């Protein structure tokens, strides 16, 4: 019964996550950027933009310039989360890919590091006056949500084990529409429920920073406005209306 409810919840959450994020990406990519506004000095060609974006996404270059504490804690959290997610791939493939098997122990440490990073970020949010001022209840709850997900996962690893073979069976069952029971385990229920919540709120919350960063004009534009005319469709219409019949002769 609980297994069925979780199956429905996870299907729904995954569907809304995928549809929601794709919809957002579609909106971002279809909204025109009428003016060249890279924060300069900026790369002068596309290759440079790819490098800039890579540094931004992998190393949080701008945040590094801004504040070492926020950068350290934020990067620790994100890098650990990435490792933890990769570690979880073992629940989704049979047989487990060899490199996923290889990173398993690191993934465990990453789980702890992720929790520490989140805790540090929350301490900052609670006790640094400026950051507390700008925080909304949802900012705090988001950290709590992620911390409980991490903590419940670690709990199952270290204290109250669950039947991971059965969990894997359940997940593979979801993937191949061959449904299997979910082990009865309170920690697991909490973990899966909150992951579903995270997926659900992703496309309607500040978690949109993940796809958003790739569409940020101040970061993804090349600095070449003199060399190439940049014009959006709606701005182009103003040009056309400006050209009178007399101008057409001149333009030849």
């Amino acid at each position, binding site marked *: 019964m609980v297994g069925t409810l979780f199956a429905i919840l996870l299907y729904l959450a995954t569907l809304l996550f995928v549809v929601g994020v794709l919809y957002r990406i579609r909106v971002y990519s279809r909204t025109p950027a009428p003016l060249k506004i890279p924060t300069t000095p900026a790369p002068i060609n596309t290759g440079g933009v790819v490098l800039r974006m890579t540094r931004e996404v992998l190393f*949080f270059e701008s*945040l590094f310039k801004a504040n070492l504490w926020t950068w350290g804690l*934020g990067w620790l959290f994100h890098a650990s989360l990435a490792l933890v997610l990769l570690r979880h791939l073992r629940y989704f493939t049979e047989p487990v890919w060899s490199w996923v098997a290889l990173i398993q122990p690191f993934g465990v440490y990453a789980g702890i590091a992720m929790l520490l990073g989140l805790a540090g970020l929350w301490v900052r949010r609670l006790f640094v006056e400026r*950051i507390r001022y700008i925080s909304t209840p949802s900012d705090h709850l988001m950290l709590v949500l992620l911390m409980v997900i991490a903590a419940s996962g670690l709990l199952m690893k270290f204290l109250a084990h669950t039947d991971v073979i059965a969990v894997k069976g359940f997940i593979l069952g979801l993937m191949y529409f061959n449904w299997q029971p979910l082990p009865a385990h309170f920690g697991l229920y909490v973990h899966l429920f909150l992951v579903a919540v995270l997926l659900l709120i992703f496309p309607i919350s500040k978690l949109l*920073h993940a796809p958003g960063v790739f569409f940020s004009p101040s970061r993804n534009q090349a600095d070449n*406005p003199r060399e190439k005319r*940049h014009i959006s469709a709606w701005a182009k219409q103003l040009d056309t209306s400006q050209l009178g019949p007399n101008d057409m002769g001149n333009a030849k």
Partner: protein
Amino acid sequence: MSATITAPAYRIIPIIPALKPGAMEDSKPFVANDKIQEALGFPGQLVEDWHDRAIARMGELLGKYRSLKVYMDACVHCGACSDKCHYFIGTQDPKNMPVARQDLLRSVYRRYFTLPGKFFPKLVGARDLTREVLDEWYTYFNQCSECRRCSVFCPYGIDTAEVTMAAREILDCVGYGQKYSNEIIGKVHRIGNNLGLPGPALLDTLEGLEEDVKEGTGIDVRFPLDVKGAEVLLITPSADFFAEPHIDSLIGYAKVFHATGTSWTLSSMASEAGNFGMFIGNYEQLRKIAMRIREAALELGVKRIIVGECGHAWRVAYSFWNTLTGVGDGADANDRFAMMLQKQLDHRYKQPMHICEFTWDMIEQGALSFDKEANDKHIITFHDSCNVARGSRMGNFAGGQFEIPRNIIKAVANNFVEMPSSTTREQTFCCGGGGGLLTDDLLDLRVKGALPRMEVLQQVVDEHGVNFMACICAICKAQFTKVMPIYGFDRRMIGGVHQLVSNAIRLDNK
């Protein structure tokens, strides 16, 4: 009002100030009257249905500007920007933290355009658009100089300038415009420049300048106006025509053109480089003001367009002119609008070109020579102007906007000192008067906003005896001339790079 304005104390160690909520809630510029508003096609007074119109306009802007849409969604309230704004540092008002300023608009965006904001407004900090919120927008979006310093540090590149521009555009559309900026835009359209200097007066001024330079140097340096067939059209801020110290840089440009034998002209139709359309975030005004340069260039048949010392004007020229008017290169062959002009321009040169790029090219080619000793009385530092530093470029490589002006200073003077690196180049602090805030009704804000720059200037004054701060922006020059005395500096400490060029350049009678 100005009698009571004093400079805030320097921070002993530049620590992040404690918050003083509400410190600047009474600082707001004069509201534009109906005559000023209507001249730009905005409603004269706050309209009855301002609420619906504001939300509708916000929706339109979200659909037209990817920057606004992404920036509204992406902020995670990490606080990276929170201590980066000069107005926050100087005023300690938490609503002058870039993220808090953005949130004034973002809270309304969330309420009307996002699901969580519609259903759980308190949870995500969403607010109804009330009259109080609208007034708060007017107050605090007129305390941002659109300098983009925050965007350097944001992990998503969120640029508060874009948010401020959107907010001001919404305010204009509901009839709640700012007097200073909108009055100036009216003058550009009516008279041709921000200062309202009509053509005959401009001609008089230029003739007077020719006499002054003749008297000073014995050489006939020309200041041509509306000369058809000139090689270069110079577009410069109108302050260069009579404000101090701006005029000394204009003399510098003229001497450079003279010494290199370049035929050039000013235009009475386009006697203004400044473009306050950017400050108010209105694309149509931005474009309309820029179109005067296109028209002047076509009419005069010039081959090159060079821009004088003006920060936001150079951002508009460098980053936007090609888009707005076709002044640039690389338009589609079937782009008739742009090709009309681009076929006329000489593409062996950058179009448009900054006067510093021109002068530096000439120095590198050996076409100019200097008596550097003429500047020996100055120990010089360089203030990077925000729009040049973070919204434009010079030369062929990223960061040329930092190197080229410094190279010129070092070529024309012997004593050059840098201010601390956390306050120069892309991390430079705004002068405190940019973005349409250079008005006396905001003097208190301007003085406080200058604090971070004044602190480090004091440092190099104490350590190295600096007595001249060069810059390449008309607004910086005007702002510092006004606020530096309040901090106990001589107002003549601020000047242009081409003022230094002018002091040292060797001229012969051509």
